[in-house]
């Protein structure tokens, strides 16, 4: 039997049954019965013809499919007949499924998609483990370490390195600052992507003098107009000539972080200086491609052997880094975002669960109204399975409608999310609704449909048809058991809602704490910018002179209160630690402590409003010709000079700028602590060197203004342009922006979770409201009798509200218990607050109770205003 023959087969069966039935009738007539009696007798002898048809069709094998289709069409008709009900359910479902789909798209893009390279599972992120610190702390590689790892390992097809930076490109008289990566010559080969034009880097490109550059597709388009003959051309960058090796294909990016590198240069530049020979200059990220069949553990053992050997050979620099760390690149890249995304996904699944409970409640009410219909079905021969199937098909049809609307909504939400998302989630910009997301949407729609459909379906199929028909006629369908189920759904919704409310409450309170953290400086009204002065453009003296002049001229701009420069700007992600020793406390070179390095020009502390605690700040005494000096912060003083006056002590910092080479410096001042890495990172020991005595990088300009700092950015650009047209100004931003960005991730998480909690609160309220309204309608008679017997309106009001409160209280108690366990997952995301914070728990329970009272209010009011006369007379 083929399915397309079903129709023909049906007609055939029809004909067969009626032929035989007619025959029976004829025979009965021949026995002498009247035509009416004969027909009746024939039918009785024949049995339930609908059931027979069904059972016969069942033997054909295609029936299930056909029946699903029938049920589906029937479900659509049913839903179309109740447009209000359908619309509200589809809306609720669409919200739940939409939010879930959007978050899943993010998770999909960030965590689930494989890296966009061939055989991405073989790509490993490599580092050394710094054993001087507790826990597993990865340490970058130095060039000599890298060369040893590259040549001595047996487990990798190749190991490549990259290190980020910036470069000033001079093109057609204009200069522009670009983000770059300095890479080893086998970088693209290890990743497995060849340039789409020109040639790959070669080993000799690592040699001093062989400056080569690989362009990204986007920069090739925007800066070079997609010129076909670009390979082999010369490009002026940082006052050097680079040969363009080629152009990478569209979409290629590595590392996969923001901002994407505009170009990659070979390490020839670093080799020209002393960087490639300095062991201990640990700045490189390393990525390796495993040989086929090699496990990460084997690779780790292999590299650790080399690291241990290096630690023995070079104790001064490598003593603490005696093992290697090998981590799949995808895992490394997504490591930071994993917990946050997990929490968000968990939260949105809870919302979806609430949506299920909510819709299940609505369906229960609807099913109760249709009690008569189903009783009738049961009476005329529908089996229990058939009734369950039909109800489930209806609910899955509903959820599929909701799913279609939800995926559409999720598509919109995703775009909003990507735009709002400040988190540096890698690959976020590529997040889209792909096949996997659609599949997820489908699965989740069907799953929700079954989940919210199963309770009403089960309830309906169990009701005794006779009772239902009788009850239905008096419009009090649904018994005690059904109320219990409905109550349970409301309690469950309340509990889940409270879990979400408590979670978002915790994040909110944590965010408030974060925003109230004193950063240690005053970020208001400060503009910052970087000036890309290529090293080598000026002599050491000229370079210093340029910045002195620049700061002086900017300070003279109207609206500027004070100006200076320093490095790193707190919360700017610039950061470095350098080893040092304190005079009079000799330690072996390999055991020297390291702390955060800062550079400051005169006026820096005043402009930043970092308080001076004792001694003095830097001034013109600390110049090129002055005595070597250093300023420490309070945390440094407390750690290294407890119960001792640090002023006048001497420190030797292992840093040199060719003029001041690892000088022994006198401590001349102690300043306040600043939050260097972010608001939530603890204060840490830091020392500052005068910029004039440590010219190692371009400092950040800091400009305190009287008005809106951004209004001065053109003036600042103009000053720089006047002084040197070949020097670009970049990273122009307010200090407040940096501080705000440092709280961006908690803010975003809090925002999203609060949205979910808001949805949860509304759902909980709707759920309770729906139940109580239904109860009031159902018990109209009873309420009428009560009132007729003298119950006051306030009694009725109180009665209904009490019922709502009892349900809510049950949900709140369950919710508190669940939240207590569940919120432990938030621990890592909370700052200055415990996951079991009683204030949050109490406050959120109170919010939920208040909202519940409000939700009970309307049905209670309606019940109290009922006219007993009318209530009792209505059927």
């Amino acid at each position: 039997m083929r399915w397309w023959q079903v129709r023909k087969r049906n007609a055939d069966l029809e004909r067969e049954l009626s032929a035989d039935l007619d025959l029976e009738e004829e025979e009965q007539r021949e026995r002498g019965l009247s035509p009416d009696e004969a027909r009746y007798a024939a039918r009785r002898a024949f049995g339930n013809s609908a059931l027979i048809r069904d059972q016969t069709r069942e033997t054909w094998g295609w029936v299930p499919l056909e029946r699903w289709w029938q049920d589906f069409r029937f479900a659509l008709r049913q839903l179309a007949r109740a447009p209000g009900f359908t619309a509200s359910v589809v809306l609720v479902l669409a919200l739940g499924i939409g939010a879930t789909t959007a978050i899943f798209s993010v998770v999909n893009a960030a965590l689930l998609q494989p890296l966009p390279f061939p055989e991405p599972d073989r790509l490993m992120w490599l580092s050394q483990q710094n054993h001087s610190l507790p826990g597993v702390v990865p340490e970058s590689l130095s060039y000599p370490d890298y060369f040893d790892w590259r040549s001595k390992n047996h487990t990798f097809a190749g190991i490549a390195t990259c290190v980020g930076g910036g470069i000033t490109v001079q093109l057609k008289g204009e200069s522009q600052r670009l983000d770059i990566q300095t890479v080893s010559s086998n970088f693209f080969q290890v990743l497995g992507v060849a340039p789409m034009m020109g040639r790959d880097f070669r080993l000799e490109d690592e040699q001093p003098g062989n400056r080569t550059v690989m362009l990204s597709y986007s920069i090739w388009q925007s800066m070079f107009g997609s010129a076909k003959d670009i390979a082999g051309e010369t490009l002026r960058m940082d006052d050097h000539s680079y040969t363009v090796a080629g152009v990478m294909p569209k979409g290629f990016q590595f590392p996969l972080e923001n901002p994407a590198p505009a170009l990659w240069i070979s390490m020839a530049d670093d080799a020209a200086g002393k960087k490639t020979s300095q062991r201990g200059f640990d700045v490189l990220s390393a990525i390796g491609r495993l040989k086929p069949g090699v496990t990460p553990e084997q690779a780790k053992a292999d590299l650790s052997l080399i690291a241990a050997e290096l630690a023995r050979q070079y104790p001064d620099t490598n003593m603490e880094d005696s093992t290697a760390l090998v981590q799949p690149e995808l895992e490394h890249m997504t490591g930071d975002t994993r917990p946050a995304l997990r929490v968000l996904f968990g939260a949105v699944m809870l919302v979806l669960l609430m949506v299920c409970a909510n819709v299940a409640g609505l369906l229960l009410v609807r099913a109760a109204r249709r009690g008569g219909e189903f009783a009738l079905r049961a009476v005329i021969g529908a089996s229990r399975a058939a009734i369950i199937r039909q109800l489930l098909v209806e609910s899955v049809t509903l959820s599929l409608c909701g799913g279609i609307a939800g995926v559409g909504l999720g598509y919109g939400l995703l775009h909003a999310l990507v735009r709002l998302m400040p988190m540096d989630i890698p690959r976020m910009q590529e997040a889209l609704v792909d096949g996997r997301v659609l599949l997820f949407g489908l699965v989740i729609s069907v799953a929700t449909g079954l989940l919210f459909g199963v309770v009403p379906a089960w309830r309906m199929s169990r009701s005794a048809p006779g009772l239902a028909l009788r009850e239905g006629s008096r419009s009090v369908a649904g018994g005690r058991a059904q109320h219990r189920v409905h109550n349970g759904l409301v309690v469950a919704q309340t509990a889940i809602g409270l879990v979400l409310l408590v979670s978002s409450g915790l994040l909110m309170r944590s965010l408030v704490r974060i925003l109230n953290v004193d950063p240690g400086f005053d970020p208001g009204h400060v503009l910052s910018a970087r000036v890309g002065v290529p090293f080598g453009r000026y002599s050491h003296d000229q370079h210093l002179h340029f910045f002195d002049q620049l700061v002086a001229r900017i300070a003279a701009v109207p609206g500027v209160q004070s100006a200076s420069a320093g490095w790193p700007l707190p919360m700017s992600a610039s950061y470095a630690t350098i080893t040092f020793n304190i005079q009079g406390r000799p330690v072996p070179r390999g055991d020297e402590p390291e702390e955060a390095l800062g550079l400051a020009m005169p006026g820096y502390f005043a402009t930043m409003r970092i308080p001076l605690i004792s001694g003095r700040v830097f001034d013109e005494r600390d110049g090129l010709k002055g005595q070597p000096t250093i300023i420490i912060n309070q945390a440094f003083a407390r750690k290294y000079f407890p119960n001792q006056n640090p002023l006048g002590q001497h420190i030797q910092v292992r840093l040199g700028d060719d003029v001041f080479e690892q000088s022994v410096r006198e401590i001349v001042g102690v300043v306040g602590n600043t939050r260097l890495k972010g608001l939530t990172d603890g204060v840490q020991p830091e020392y500052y060197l005068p910029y004039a005595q440590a010219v190692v990088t371009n400092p950040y300009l800091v400009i305190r203004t009287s008005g809106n700092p951004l209004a001065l950015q053109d003036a600042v650009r103009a000053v720089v342009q006047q002084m040197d047209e070949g020097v670009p100004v970049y990273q122009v931003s307010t200090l407040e922006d940096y501080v705000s960005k440092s709280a961006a991730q908690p803010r975003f998480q809090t925002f999203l979770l609060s949205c979910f909690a808001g949805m949860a609160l509304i759902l909980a309220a709707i759920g309770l409201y729906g139940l109580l309204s239904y109860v009031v309608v159902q018990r109209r008679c009873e309420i009428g009798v009560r009132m007729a017997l003298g119950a006051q309106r306030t009694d009725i009001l109180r009665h209904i509200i009490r019922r709502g409160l009892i349900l809510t209280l049950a949900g709140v108690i369950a919710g508190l218990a669940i939240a207590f366990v569940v919120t432990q997952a938030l621990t890592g995301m909370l700052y200055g607050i415990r996951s079991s914070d009683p204030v949050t728990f109490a406050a959120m329970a109170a919010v939920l109770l208040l909202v519940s009272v409000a939700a009970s209010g309307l049905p209670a009011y309606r019940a109290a205003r009922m006219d007993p006369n009318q209530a009792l007379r209505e059927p």
Partner: protein
Amino acid sequence: MARQSPQHANLLQGTLDMLILRTLLYGPAHGHEIGKHIQRTTNDFLQMQHGSLYPALHRLERRGWVVSKWETAPDRNREFKYYRLTEKGRKQLVVEESQWKQMAEAVARVLWPTAEES
């Protein structure tokens, strides 16, 4: 299935198939005839609703034990759907008959043990 009065037995599951096959051994018949025949030959002891035959007939056809054809009945001037036993059906009947016999004997041995001994 509708309730039956005590003196009528419910058909054992699977027995109906055998009875139909056995009935068709006499020659092609349509559903009504088959039902009437089973009822008559058991002296109305197996009183089933005719309707319950059809699922069984269609099942047998699907298994290839019977084939069907619309033919005009000799006594009525109308077409009925006649079922005819196939070779496969014949073999199946032999199998079912022997199984039934074995079972009947086994049941008898349990119910009337002394009769068996004597």
